[in-house]
């Protein structure tokens, strides 16, 4: 019975992927892509990877879709003629995708059975971190360097978006609100954020011991912030504000500081002192959540489109 369900899920995912690739109207393709992200989240749940499932639903189904929709709307404003890619471009993209998919499939199929795994080692060392969730232990203790660099990449992406603004608008506020926000949307923007913030705080806190964590919590926070900005309840902030920039870099900076402190009080870069790993990790996660929420929100808001107030 569950086998049937899994097969249906796989068929559904494949059909939706083909639909996304073939859809002629961009908006429809993006909406199908959002549905694809949510379904893929279900797929990860079936593989018992709840942490991945939550991230996929939040990023793949949420933020990416919103980014793409904004980009599509902006492209539509710019050009009156819808531009379709050339046949050769399409063919090249199709070939590249097929090669990558085939390569991945080959790699997965060529694993010896049982596949090599570090899961027992990760579970065995869990006690020394004081954490209960092995995924968080991998992300913030065993492979902390990867996580740290990933957050720096996010900041670089935001810098890339910001640098699209013309010189005279640098440091100004991005424009996100609609000309007239419909009343039901404003109502949603008033009542949903308290729940969202509560859920985000819970996700961040519970991440140490159960599925959840910084990225999921940060995405939920970002969604609530975007809702408030889209409903015109609060304007987007000026990007030159010092508090905003401090909060943006706060998470990675704290991470770096703890990393370098590791030379003095523990075994080296990014190693935590014995017994104090958990409180340090939870502290880093809290700062990272705020940074991720701001970064994702500002990524969607886009480059500044108004000159900074004098």
């Amino acid at each position: 019975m569950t086998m049937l369900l899994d097969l249906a899920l796989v068929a559904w995912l494949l059909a939706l992927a083909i639909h996304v690739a073939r859809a002629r109207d961009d908006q429809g393709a993006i909406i199908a892509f959002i549905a694809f992200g949510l379904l893929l989240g279900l797929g990860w749940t079936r593989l018992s990877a709840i942490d991945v499932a939550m991230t996929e639903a939040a990023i793949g189904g949420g933020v990416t879709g919103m980014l793409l929709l904004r980009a599509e709307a902006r492209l539509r404003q710019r050009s009156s003629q819808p531009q379709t890619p050339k046949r050769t471009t399409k063919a090249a993209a199709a070939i590249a995708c097929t090669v990558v998919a085939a390569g991945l499939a080959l790699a997965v199929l060529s694993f010896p059975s049982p596949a090599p795994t570090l899961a027992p080692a990760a579970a065995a060392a869990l006690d020394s971190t004081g954490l209960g969730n092995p995924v968080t232990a991998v992300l913030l203790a065993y492979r902390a360097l990867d996580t740290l660099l990933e957050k720096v990449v996010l900041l670089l992406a935001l810098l890339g978006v910001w640098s699209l603004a013309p010189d005279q608008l640098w440091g100004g506020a991005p424009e996100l609100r609609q000309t007239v926000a419909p009343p039901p949307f404003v109502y949603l923007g008033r009542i949903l954020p308290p729940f969202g913030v509560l859920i985000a705080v819970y996700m961040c806190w519970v991440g140490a011991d159960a599925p959840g964590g910084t990225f999921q919590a940060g995405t939920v926070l970002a969604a609530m912030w975007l809702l408030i900005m889209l409903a015109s309840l609060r304007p987007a902030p000026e990007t030159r504000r010092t508090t905003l920039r401090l909060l943006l870099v706060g998470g990675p900076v704290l991470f770096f500081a703890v990393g370098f402190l590791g030379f003095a009080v523990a075994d080296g870069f990014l190693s935590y002192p014995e017994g104090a790993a958990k409180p340090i990790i939870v502290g880093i996660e809290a700062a990272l959540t705020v940074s991720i929420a701001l970064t994702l929100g500002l990524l969607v808001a886009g480059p500044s489109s108004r000159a900074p107030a004098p």
Partner: protein
Amino acid sequence: MTSLANAFTLVAVGCGALLFLAGTLGLLRFPDTLSRLHALSKADNLGLGLIVLGLLPQAESFAGGLKLVCVWLLAQISAATASQLIAGVLYRRKSRP
């Protein structure tokens, strides 16, 4: 007592699934956007409500049940808002010449 709770779950979740099926049929077959929205919100509100109601006896704790009800309430709010937004766009498009 447990078998009674299980029977209740089966009936309620079954009804919910049936409503979702009917809602999907409506979404695919109804002629215009407003009636399709109607079918969709019926499935969302009542179907999900019945499924949550059916799952309540299976919840391990009071807090777990409360979370299920919260999921239903949040889905309600977002579904209602989305329907209003779509209907609003439709209305503005129609009233414009």
